[in-house]
């Protein structure tokens, strides 16, 4: 690299042009999505069918909730790796609390009635977020490593409680949301769309949503402006945990059981989707909509590769190549350097 820099922040360009570019940042994956769509269409007539597209949509739901959670947390300038374990451990703990203590293949302690399964699951997620928040904000531990430790610990807790089994006998109420269809479209898609909409609106139009950007952009400045930085960060971590737990509910319904490896290894995808979707790892930047395009990109890549019948041995390689290519396209589409 030559040491010649651009002149940053010298001349305030005749307003308008630069701002527009910044606004387009969130759309920088749209060209990638279009390219994928064209390839998909070329590769198989099955691509552009409602069935296939709804399928892609539904497969994206659980991941997208984690991405929503991570996007909020990243915008506020933090990280949470443990989301990938929360999606598994929260449902397992909920089951353990509600399922009867005998008779099933997996026995719980039957402490609560069955209908409380979903609220309990969400509460566990919230609790996990609160616990992370405590370690990060009160004990001032490094968030990356805390949640990395949390990832291992929670996954281990899930294995210990479920004894490594998949839990098949989940109450129907618990599985309903992940498996039902409303108006011909999976319920999970409706719900995710709603949550993304809510998240997007909150970030765009609510004071506390905007506070996330301020905190992520410069926590000290945010504090000086009267924003309760720690409290809001904590709330965001709790919301993140809750969303991950809710993703666990959808997952369970979608795949018919709580599998022991639920969410295993997803955190990479979560980060990939969030960051190629334009959310900055350093906080203060990005939108919910961008994150959504990130998830859809990743999901479409898998779909198109399956349709194209890529030989299994080359599958993973191509997947990696496509992530990098997507990154390059979006970088040049947005015209911004990514740091």
């Amino acid at each position, binding site marked *: 690299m030559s040491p010649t820099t651009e002149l940053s922040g010298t001349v305030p360009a005749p307003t308008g042009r630069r701002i527009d570019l910044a606004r387009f940042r969130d759309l920088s994956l749209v060209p990638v999505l279009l390219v994928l769509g064209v390839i998909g269409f070329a590769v198989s007539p099955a691509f552009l069918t409602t069935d296939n597209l709804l399928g892609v949509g539904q497969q994206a739901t659980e991941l997208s909730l984690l991405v929503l959670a991570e996007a909020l947390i990243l915008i506020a300038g933090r990280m949470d790796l443990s989301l990938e374990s929360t999606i598994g451990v929260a449902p397992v703990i909920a089951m353990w609390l509600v399922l009867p203590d005998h008779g099933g293949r997996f026995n719980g302690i039957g402490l609560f009635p069955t209908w409380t399964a979903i609220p309990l699951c969400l509460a566990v997620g919230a609790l996990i977020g609160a616990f992370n928040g405590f370690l990060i904000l009160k004990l001032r531990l490094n968030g990356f490593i805390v949640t990395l430790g949390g990832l291992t610990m929670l996954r281990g807790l899930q294995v210990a409680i479920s004894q490594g089994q998949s839990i098949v006998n989940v109450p129907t109420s618990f599985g309903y949301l992940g498996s039902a269809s409303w108006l011909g479209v999976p319920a999970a898609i409706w719900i995710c769309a709603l949550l993304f909409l809510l998240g997007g609106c909150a970030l*765009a139009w609510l004071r506390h949503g905007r506070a996330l*950007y301020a905190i992520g952009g410069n926590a000290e400045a945010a504090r000086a402006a009267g924003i309760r930085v720690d409290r809001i960060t904590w709330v965001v971590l709790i919301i993140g945990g809750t969303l991950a737990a809710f993703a666990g509910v959808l997952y369970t319904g979608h795949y018919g059981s709580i599998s022991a490896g639920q969410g295993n290894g997803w955190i990479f995808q979560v980060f990939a989707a969030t960051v190629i979707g334009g959310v900055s790892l350093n906080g203060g930047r990005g939108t919910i909509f961008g994150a959504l395009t990130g998830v859809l990109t990743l999901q479409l890549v898998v779909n198109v590769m399956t349709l194209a019948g890529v030989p299994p041995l080359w599958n993973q390689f191509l997947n990696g190549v496509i992530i990098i290519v997507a990154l390059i396209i979006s970088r040049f589409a947005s015209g911004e350097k990514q740091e």
Partner: protein
Amino acid sequence: MADPSPVVEADGISKRFGATVALRDARITVAPGESHALVGRNGAGKSTLVSILTGLQQPDTGTLRFNGEPAPAPGDIDAWRARVACVYQRSTIIPALSVAENLFLNRHTNGGLRPIRWRELRSRAADLLAEYGVDVDPAARAGQLTVEQRQFVEIARALSFGARFIILDEPTAKLDARGIERLFAKLRELQGQGVAFLFISHHLQEVYELCDTVTVYRDARHILTAPVVELDQHAMVEAMTGEQSKGTEPAWSAGERSAPVGEPLLEVADLGLPGVYESCSLAARAGEVLGLAGSAASGNIQFGETLAGLHRPRSGTVTVAGRAVRTGRVPASLAAGIGFVPEDRHIQGLIPQRSVAENATLTVTDQLGPFGTVLPSRTRVFAERMITDLDIKTPGPATEVSALSGGNQQKVVIARALATEPQVLVAVKPTNGVDIKSKESLLGTVRQVADSGRTALIVSDELDDLRVCDRVLAMFHGRIVAEFTHGWTDEQLVSAMEGMTGTTETKEDHVTDH
């Protein structure tokens, strides 16, 4: 005034950071409607007091009352903000957000659940900025503004809270003459409405211009509080430094020097950076201090940065001691003997978490040991010499540089530039945020560089900085428009920087003693 109790009354305030005592049993009282100055050397504890008065930090000991009532709870920043607004020394602008949002951060709406009306917010922002004559689009990202524009956003924000008490911690450090003018006009207007100020500055003439009362801190302690009129500049400096101040004329004054003669050491021919400055030429001789004056948008700073190799010019050449310098590369400039003091020490000057020693020797790591090694002993010795030479106030060379006060940090940056013993020292705003005493010594250092047969180029819009120069060139809109030898008057230079100069003034001697 119905309520005679002071807007703020702090007593017995102590605060320490690890081993550093920032404030020791300090006090301050600001009466309603009063314009109160707080002065002191770098590291005297002024900013620490500010962060305590604004609720960002809690004092270790002491009491704090606003309008006779106890201060709000520590976390309740909103309540603090209702009592006191502040322009902090360190920028609190969030670059990724728009100007409008920065102005109304956390006050977008009244209720937490009420949606933000962006259009209205932007028009309110535009109105607010217009009051200060700042011409920026409220929808622009704050990161794209110039330093000065950002400072105005910051000021506009603080003043718009409607607080009856406003603290300004070195608000003028980032403004040019016209900006300061506008700020003062605004402050006087508010003062007329009965708003009280606590004003911190290292420019004592600003204190005399604006304030009624002055409080002096030294070494974390309260020294005195007195009406400004009763304290002349000598006495004030004496209170700040604790030393008997000597003669009136600083040692470095360019006043009666004879113009240096001899071969030019630095020659710049026809240098151009598109959109910033064009065909700028200058020459500086050995022994000469050359000033490059210009306001924010004149391009003088980028010109200085180009000499240091930070930008690659489109056209032109740079020659040091007769040898052409490869442009656009910092190592080449360094090797050619150009030393550089960057504009913003936080962005380009310091590695915050590394030690003073390491920062001060960053440019000379090749001289601190054989075979590409850097010996800690030599580094320490080198740094200790710099600390003594430049009078840097630090617990030791191994202290993290971020724990120093701003003025001392600036000295570390200068140390770094001087470490290479440069033929040509290019210093952009070298005394930015530095107290009056340190300013003397820093400018004295620059003068010494020239006196030892080398040359220095001071790029600045501060008249104090420029007074040390043998010759001053003024830039306006990317061109060098005027040249002054010593003896210029402030008005001449300021109007040249504002582009209101007849070329006739160039090179004419207006010898006036000051």
